[in-house]
């Protein structure tokens, strides 16, 4: 069994958006294909192209069929290392390629090794770029990939991109190159407009999935929804809840009406509640719904009395995942009561509702597994969650006021309650202004299945607010007691002791996020020397310098990347690493756009293993050592 089973596994795909729900080290979860039968379409990949003696040929055919059962990249990578013959066969039969860092390998190299790919996942910028820590136009361009794949993979069906930059031209090329194209998933991407979308929706007649979660689309006047072809579509999933563009509602309504397979629909806030009503009435089979604004009806909506919103929701018997509420008017919340009992996922993280309004919803959601909320629900709201949602697997609590030094509505009380009420918890992201070690320790004991633990105490260097101690013991308990933990984000006042704990006990940790923490190089050394599975390490504003950096030389080739910004690195230290590890691309980014790095201090170090050598599309502020 592959390691993938350690991660969140939701076969029904109840996630809101692939970007934020899955931990970054995991491939997007897809239902695994049914076992192939001889003579089925799957065997198209089995046609061997190299001649060999008869008995070898038989073995190869057997191998090809066996390898089709391997879907996870990690398993396939392992298989390819067995022997040359296995390497060849595996390469010919791999249909899904996962590229965790777009600069680690060139497009040509991928298409040469894997000639028969149907699905591609490519990730670009590192996560800290989301928080303005990376200057604009750093890179991560889809252009070179679509150009190469367009020629090499005419039968490509699926493209999944995360934190990449695409242009309209790239999308046009995609639409022109892949006649059988079925799924486009763009997460946290940008660089294109509605014209690019138009090319895709009009030319890709077999399009099943168009998912634009958290992707920025600029409005260039083209009404892309109207460009879906006439007649029935294959659409199963249409997600555009974060797209800030006006929508032609008539076109949308017509599209939904002629998409009988549509199961997932997430609307942006341009869609009013009245329009939502009409869409729901024509699509009662939806399983995933993003409600759009959910505010007061707009002038263009028909008379209020005619709309029985509650009935519309009741009619959606299959609804399991609800999100949206982008401009919610709490008066309309009761309309969703009838579906609460069926919900496994609920995202209220854009809805500023008060405690009572929240409680009236959550007390009915006893099947809930995934919940995203704002901290405006207070500790009291979280206690209500703990009382009802015994099956909760994932919780995210976002801040209404993302600032330091303000009063926070949630605290250790909420965290403790959740730990006591939700023992099956696997993933948590919790923003707060105050926390205690005791509550974190309690969670480590009560929730042994935790895979992802991300605690963000928003005030920098904040200690345990009751004891005044650093938060070392709390995080120490998490790594010690949560034996399945693979992703950790730490915050608050932290000394090197916390890092000692992580290095000592965090043996499965793959992703670690550090900010404003630690005392000295020792802290980082503990982690680099103690965590053998570490893949992604992102650090900001922490007192780690060159001595710590070089202590990780033995491990950097095993990592996806290392990010260190505003630490205490010098150019010299980074140079030393670059010299020692020639296959590592060591990028120094400068925050001063006009000045090249003349002084010795390093603003940002971003380094990653790469087979292709230094990239040729680096902007001015990037120096590659």
């Amino acid at each position, binding site marked *: 069994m592959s390691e993938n089973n350690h991660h969140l596994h939701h076969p029904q795909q109840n996630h809101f958006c692939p970007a934020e729900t899955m931990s970054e080290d995991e491939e997007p979860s897809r239902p695994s294909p049914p076992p192939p039968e001889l003579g089925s379409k799957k065997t198209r990949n089995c046609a061997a192209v190299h001649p060999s003696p008869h008995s070898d040929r038989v073995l190869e055919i057997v191998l090809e069929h066996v390898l089709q059962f391997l879907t996870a990249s990690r398993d396939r990578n392992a298989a390819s290392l067995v022997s040359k013959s296995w390497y060849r066969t595996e390469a010919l039969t791999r249909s899904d390629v996962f590229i965790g860092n777009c600069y680690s390998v060139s497009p040509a190299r991928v298409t040469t090794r894997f000639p028969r790919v149907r699905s591609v996942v490519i990730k670009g910028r590192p996560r800290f770029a989301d928080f*303005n820590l990376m200057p604009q136009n750093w890179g991560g361009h889809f252009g070179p990939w679509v150009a190469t794949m367009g020629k090499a993979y005419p039968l490509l069906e699926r493209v999944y991109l995360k934190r990449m930059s695409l242009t309209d031209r790239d999308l046009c090329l995609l639409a022109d190159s892949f006649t059988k194209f079925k799924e486009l998933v763009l997460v946290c991407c940008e660089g294109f407009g509605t014209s690019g979308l138009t090319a895709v929706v009009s030319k890709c007649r077999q399009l099943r999935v168009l998912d634009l979660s958290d992707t920025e689309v600029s409005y260039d006047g083209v009404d892309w929804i109207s460009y879906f072809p006439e007649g029935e579509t294959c659409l199963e999933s249409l997600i555009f809840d974060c797209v800030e563009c006006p929508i032609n509602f008539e076109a949308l309504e017509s599209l939904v009406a002629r998409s009988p397979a549509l199961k997932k629909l997430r609307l942006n806030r341009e869609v009013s509640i009245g329009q939502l009503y009409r869409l729901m009435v024509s699509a009662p089979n939806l399983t995933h719904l993003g409600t759009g604004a959910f505010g007061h009806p707009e002038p263009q909506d028909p008379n209020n009395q005619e709309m029985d919103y509650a009935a519309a929701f009741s009619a959606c018997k299959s609804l399991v995942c609800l999100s949206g509420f982008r401009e919610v008017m709490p008066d309309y919340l009761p309309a969703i009561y009838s579906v609460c009992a069926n919900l496994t996922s609920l995202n209220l993280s854009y809805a500023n509702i008060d405690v009572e309004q929240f409680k009236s919803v959550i007390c009915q959601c006893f099947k809930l597994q995934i919940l995203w909320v704002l901290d405006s629900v207070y500790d009291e709201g979280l206690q209500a969650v703990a009382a009802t949602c015994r099956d909760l697997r994932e919780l995210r609590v976002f801040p209404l006021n993302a600032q330091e030094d303000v009063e926070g509505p949630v605290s250790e009380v909420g965290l403790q309650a959740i730990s006591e009420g939700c023992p099956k918890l696997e993933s948590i992201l919790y923003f707060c202004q105050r926390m205690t070690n005791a509550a974190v320790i309690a969670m480590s004991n009560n929730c042994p299945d935790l895979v992802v633990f991300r605690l963000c105490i928003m005030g*920098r260097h904040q200690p345990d607010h009751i004891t005044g101690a650093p938060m070392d013991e709390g995080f120490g308990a998490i790594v010690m007691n949560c034996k399945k933990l693979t992703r950790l984000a730490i915050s608050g006042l932290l000394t090197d002791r916390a890092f000692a704990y992580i290095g000592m006990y965090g043996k499965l940790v793959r992703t670690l996020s550090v900010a404003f923490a630690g005392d000295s190089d020792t802290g980082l050394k503990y982690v680099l020397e103690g965590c053998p599975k570490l893949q992604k390490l992102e650090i900001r504003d922490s007192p780690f310098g060159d001595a710590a950096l070089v202590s990780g030389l033995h491990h950097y080739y095993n990592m996806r990347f290392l990010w260190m910004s505003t630490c205490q690195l010098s150019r010299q230290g980074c140079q030393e690493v670059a010299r020692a590890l020639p296959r590592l691309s060591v990028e120094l980014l400068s*925050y001063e756009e006009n000045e090249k790095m003349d002084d010795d201090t390093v603003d940002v170090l971003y380094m990653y293993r790469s087979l292709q050598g230094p990239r040729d599309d680096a902007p001015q502020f990037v120096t590659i050592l």
Partner: protein
Amino acid sequence: MEGSLKGAVDMLAGDELSLGLPGGDGAKLDFVRTGGKRGFSETEVNLKLDLNGKESPSVEKVKPADPAKPPPAKAQVVGWPPVRSYRKNVIANNNKNSSDQDQAGEKGGLSGATSSLTFVKVSMDGAPYLRKIELKMYKTYKELSDALGKMFGSFTTGNYEAHQGMIDFMNENKLKDLLNRSDYVSTYEDKDGDWMLVGDVPWEMFIASCKRLRIMKGSEAIGLAPRAMEKCKGRG
């Protein structure tokens, strides 16, 4: 156990670990070497940490390990807390009851994951380090002043005269008084490379043109005042 491994074990095997772990306090801290060229034994670890062995709960605030490090200033910092701009903007918009204030980031113009950086370096004459702040975090000169005051307050013994809004350029004398009175004033370098007094121009114009901030002694800023004086005269 050798060298730094011993150091780590000493550090963690301490006295009162109030973790409530299964396995009791005799728990073996077996540190597994990760395999590879370097292990703990080869690393010189300098445990200069001033930690008390006992993690006993106490009401006393624990100071950071290095007493020379000044307490962190609580001004807004780029990208912290780590909430994506899109989310921040949407929620901020939802908070507003009325839309009488014309904000740049409204419907249709919300910045997504890659909004541009507008942060600037802030230096203060005599202070040992620089700070960086993102101007878009503040909405008024007062907010900026307060933040700067907090950031650098510990270095001034005298008055940090905050400019509460636009300087009254109509009154030349008032301006001179201001500069003579204050120990420190804020100045900024604009897009043309000129150094100006903070408070000249409307806020939006200021954040669009400010490249760098410098807090200097009021007496030194007199040299800048002529520009301000010119503007006064111009309007007169």
